[in-house]
């Protein structure tokens, strides 16, 4: 059984059919990419999957539960983390504090316990710090732990956001254009990183413009055009698909 299964998902915004009857599945342990020209509905699709928008029709199954129509915090708690195309960090908080918030879904700290700071909350707090620092080490930004998150460079902020997503120890990670604004070397590093994340057993679904990145690391690629799925194949096959070439690869990429 696939880890994530999307069935006939549709979403309309007024007169715009942003996502139309899209179905695909993601197997456990793979890197799957969603590509398509601007306005093809990729980000809407991600919003539907992560609960920021509710689909008009269609279903999403994650593991053995139907998650469409659930709120973002419930979907996050069920094991899906995501990053945004435009970085959304918590301002006025250090990088480490940002990452620890990501641990929420793995922490028990309830309201009363938090207020009274019961003994085991200290133990948990220590564990939260350790795991958060581990996630930051994995991304090579542990030395920035105590800097204010929003004062860091763009690439570092991306890494903080990714650490925050990883701190939740998700089963599945949704990456929304992670290479946006990165130079070629940084993009190559990112490719390695995504593969290493996959090797940790985390299934990755990635929306990306950068074709070289997608072709290099993805196991399968879904192509969207005007909200509809026009291909769902291995990268090599996608590159040869005439329909894909006409709507996407044929266009100037800039």
């Amino acid at each position, binding site marked *: 059984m696939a880890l994530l299964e999307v069935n006939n998902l549709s979403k309309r915004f007024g007169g715009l059919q942003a996502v139309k009857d899209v179905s695909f599945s993601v197997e456990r342990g793979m890197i799957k990419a969603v590509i398509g020209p601007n306005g093809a509905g990729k980000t809407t699709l991600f919003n539907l999957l*992560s*609960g*920021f928008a509710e689909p008009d029709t269609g279903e999403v199954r994650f593991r053995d539960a139907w998650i469409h129509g659930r*709120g*973002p*915090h419930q979907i*996050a*708690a069920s094991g899906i*983390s*995501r990053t*945004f195309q435009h970085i*959304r*960090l*918590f*301002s*006025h*908080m250090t990088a480490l*504090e*940002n990452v*620890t*918030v*990501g*641990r*929420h*879904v793995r*922490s028990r*700290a309830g*309201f009363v316990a*938090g*207020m009274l*700071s019961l003994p085991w*909350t200290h133990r*948990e*707090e220590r564990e*939260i710090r350790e795991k958060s620092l581990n996630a930051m080490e994995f991304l090579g930004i542990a030395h920035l732990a105590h800097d204010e998150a929003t004062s860091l460079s763009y690439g570092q902020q991306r890494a903080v956001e990714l650490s*925050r997503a990883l701190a*939740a120890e998700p089963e599945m990670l949704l990456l929304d254009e992670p290479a946006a604004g990165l130079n070629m070397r940084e993009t190559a590093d990112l490719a390695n990183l995504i593969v290493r994340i996959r090797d940790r057993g985390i299934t990755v679904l990635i929306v990306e413009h950068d074709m070289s990145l997608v072709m290099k690391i993805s196991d399968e690629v879904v192509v969207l055009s005007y909200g509809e799925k026009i291909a769902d194949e291995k990268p090599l096959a996608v590159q040869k698909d005439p329909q894909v070439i006409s709507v996407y690869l044929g266009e100037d990429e800039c």
Partner: protein
Amino acid sequence: MFLELFFQYLVAGLTYGTIYAIVGIGFNIVYNTTGIINFAQGEFVMLGGMIAVSLHSLLPLPIAIAAAVVLTMAIGALIEMTFIRWLVKPAVLRMIIITIGISILVREAALHLWGESVRSLPYFTGNEISAFSFGGVRVSPQVLWTLGICSVIVISLNLFFKYTMLGREMRACASNRDAAALCGIPTRNMVTLSFALAAGIGALAGAVVSPITQTSYSIGTGLAIKGFTVAILGGLGNSMAAVAAGFILGILESFSIWVMPTAYKDAIAITILLAMLFVRPSGLFGNKEAFRLKDF
């Protein structure tokens, strides 16, 4: 003699200042998580005092105060769940009108329940005439209790927001609600919690200060205006600046008695409030640039 009088006024100003600061912090806590000004904040202070006074006839003082705080927190949470929670992306103005409505509702309910009489808790230690003398400056023990407990509130709030998961999650919600939801945080519950927290600290301050200032069903509105002034003076959303602003307002009011009739005391807060709103709405310590980006 001049110097003694000076310090006497200073102590009085500090006492009132801490209460204003606590109300101002209450405004900020709710503002940070919801972006609205909760004009019912002063009513929480009133409820804390009134409930504590009522319970004190049955229970020992510390337990009565603790119970009053818990009850007021529950009322704060209930208010949020009844009136605010189900609104989907409401306009800021609408939310503010709602909180003004809530404050009238609470005040009228209190009038119905407790009548118009002015009440107060007994002094925690000593009585009305006992006082410590610091080089000629006489300080009532209740003033020390008030300053002490309010300092504890401010310090523990700081620790709570900085060092507990829950506190960080509330800050995360304040900073970016979408990203917080993405981290699995039930953001609506955080809003409820912020109301409960603001109600709780308001109630504690209301109970502690009641022996000095007395309390009645109608004190909430005045305190809300003072607290709002303090919140604006410090810069909305900035709790530590509210403490400084609270002291500034308290001390200004206290010294105004030297040069103006007592009746004008309350005019000071309103004057400062209007002046700040006209001249520097981002607050004394606020950043003008950042303020422009806020919706309210």
